[in-house]
């Protein structure tokens, strides 16, 4: 897995003060995409153990409180990204059960594969769906077009998709 950007302090991708990782690789190729440079999974910087450790350390920073981790891209649920992302979200939840994880994906909740669902178990807020240019609305919080949803994941949502 490669990543394009990492913001150790971020306030525009999810509620509160966050750490945000933009990974490479996306197969949706939505027209009008804000981050088209992130489509190619070979772009960016290789994501490694050191990066994972850094994210974990930043989330635990005692000087600047973080409310959680945001995963965006690209698509964190792009097939090649799943193993790296799963490892990361598992570790975040294990080390900081009180911090939340937000994840942006172009897939809809209903069309997730099993492997993708496995990741979503560790996610608190999922913003799903492709970006549709004709449904663009800049005033929407946390998403670009009106078809995209903010889904607060709980046990019931998980059961529904299984």
């Amino acid at each position, binding site marked *: 897995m490669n990543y394009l950007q990492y913001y150790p302090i*971020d*306030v*525009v991708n999810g509620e509160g003060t966050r750490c945000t990782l933009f990974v490479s690789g996306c197969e949706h190729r939505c027209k009008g995409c804000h981050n088209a440079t992130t489509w190619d999974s070979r772009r960016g910087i290789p994501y490694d153990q050191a990066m994972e450790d850094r994210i974990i350390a930043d989330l635990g920073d005692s000087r600047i409180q973080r409310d959680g981790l945001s995963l965006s891209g690209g698509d964190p649920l792009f097939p090649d990204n799943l193993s790296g992302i799963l490892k990361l979200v598992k570790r975040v939840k294990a080390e900081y059960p009180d911090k939340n994880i937000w994840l942006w994906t172009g897939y809809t909740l209903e069309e997730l594969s099993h492997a993708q669902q496995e990741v979503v178990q560790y996610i608190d807020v999922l913003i799903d769906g492709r970006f549709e240019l004709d449904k663009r609305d*800049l005033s929407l*919080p946390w998403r670009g077009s009106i078809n995209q949803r903010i889904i607060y994941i709980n046990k019931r949502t998980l059961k529904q998709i299984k």
Partner: protein
Amino acid sequence: MTEIIKRDGSRQPFDAPRIVKAVASALNDAQIKDHDFAEYVAKKVANTVDGLELVDIYDIQDQVEHLMMSSEHHNAARKYIEYRQTRDIERESRNALSREILSIINQDNEELLNENANKDSKIIPTQRDLLAGVVARHYARQHILPKHITAAHDRGEIHYHDLDYAPFFPMFNCMLIDIEGMMTNGFRMGNAEIETPRSITTAAAITAQIIAQVSSHIYGGTSINEIDRIHAPYVRKTFDKHLQQGMRWIGNEEKAREYAMEMTEKDCYDAYQALEYEVNTLHTANGQTPFVTFGFGLGTSWEERLVQKSILKNRIRGLGKNCKTPVFPKLVFAIRKGVNFNPEDPNYDIKQLALKCASKRMYPDILNYDKLVEVTGSFKTPMGCRSFLGVYEEDGKIIHDGRNNLGVVSLNLPRMAIESKGSEETFYQLLEQRLQLAKEALMTRIQRLDSVPARVAPILYVEGACGVRLKPDDKISEIFKNGRASISLGYIGIHETINALYGGKSTSGDLYDSEELRRKAVAIVETLRAAVNNWKEETGYGFSLYSTPSESLCDRFCRLDKKKFGVVEGVTEKGYYTNSFHLDVEKKVNPYDKVDFEQVYPKHASGGFICYGEYPNMVNNLKALENVWDYTYDKVPYYGTNTPNDSCYSCDYEGEFNATSRGFECPQCKNRDSDRMSVTRRVCGYLGQPNSRPFIKGKQEEVVRRVKHL
């Protein structure tokens, strides 16, 4: 016949007796009696021009000078030359005055017209004010200020602020109005005797009237300290009145109380709505909307809480049918542990409202109670946008309301750094000299107010705004002594100063990255503070160190230095100097690190300071905004979050507009029509609406270069 071309280009026949007169007068000044000599000079000159059609007046004068110098009357020659020089300067300055006046009519002097983003120079009353300013400035420079002070100001070594008002007029800068004293004891305003109000509606209306009057008599900002506490008794009166009505018509006390509360809430909201409209529609005698600041937030009674909520809810609503962001009054919200900081505090709900308000309207800025007390000795709202009073007691009681600031003179620190050519020793020597100049300049402000009678500003001195009730013929100077008023040394451009002094030599990077340079920067500010402490000791006046907001000064000093020294890398090349101790606006750091960087300064510059962070639109993320506010609590006393939230009247988009070279643009519908948008940005301590009234060039450049801290 020979004709002379005069200085203004007009022509006049050559007139030898004029030369006789001029030379005779010079001889007379030098106490030399030799009338024949004057005749001789005139004749000589007449001979040389004879037969010529046109002669320039300067050639005539040069000949006269030459003839005198080559005679034995050297002293007379010197007198003649001095006289010529004096006349030349006078003539030049008369021309400068005419030029400035003309530029108001022609609207072509951007520096003059855009100096203050709050003044709309297109309209007649503002033009009258600008005209008065031009004349007052001119007169003060020529006839009131000592020559060397004027010269230092003109050269841009120091800046004598607000020359368009003082010292020509015996006016002071900014203040905390003693509204409580005025309303409790009654006062006279214009033709009316005002008694203690009997409702919040009347109290708010009277407050607006007082603001209008006071701001026409001073040139800086007017603040109301703890307006929630001051207006609370009138909220109670409104409630009592409604309760009485309720009891009369409903009978049932519980129901009547409920009715009275609801009615009072409505009245209170409406009263502050009216007050906000008043302030924003007012036009003071100074040709602008008054610079007004409301401080509030500490009160926990039902009445005080209601005042706080009413102010915030009105601000969140916005002005008029487009719900535009109001620029005034500036709102300053106090945060205190035990009152509103933590979720279990009684006013935590109001802090949430304040966060919502700040995300949408940029104000309120926040005052962190404990830190403010630590840095300035007591809690109070800033006068205007950032001027803070020190501690002052009367009869064993600390008082704030009715006190004021007498004015500011600022030092051009980067200039000294450039002149020092990298020598720290030279820098501190120069600083010593310029500090002396600044002190002399500040003393002229104090002297100007000496023996001024109270009647020049009855609202301030006779009717109680300054917390005193003097008789019209009493002298006002007493109330400025013993630290009751402050008078401030300002400074600008710590960032550029450090670059100019140590640039290129430090291997450890720039000011932000280098511990060593950080210490050196603080040392400069400490030196300034030590100087004002000495002056205070020596004179008894409340000298304080003030971090100049530099709305127009950031442009002026830099422009003058660029002219004198050319483009100096890291110093003059940007076209503006950085505000006081602030971090370089282009430095990309997170707001937490910026707070850490700036937090060391307010305790030295305790007479005036504010710290900012540049944020994206935060309407949807109040939690993150609260995180930053909370972080500042024990670090900086006074903090503003610049969270642009513009609105487009074409497509209803709300969020941050793009700043382009052709003005502001809606990111959704690309609307660029300045009449169909509301754009609000921080100018200095105040907000401005640059789509309708442009900032001065250097400030605009600074705004464009501001990087987000998140």
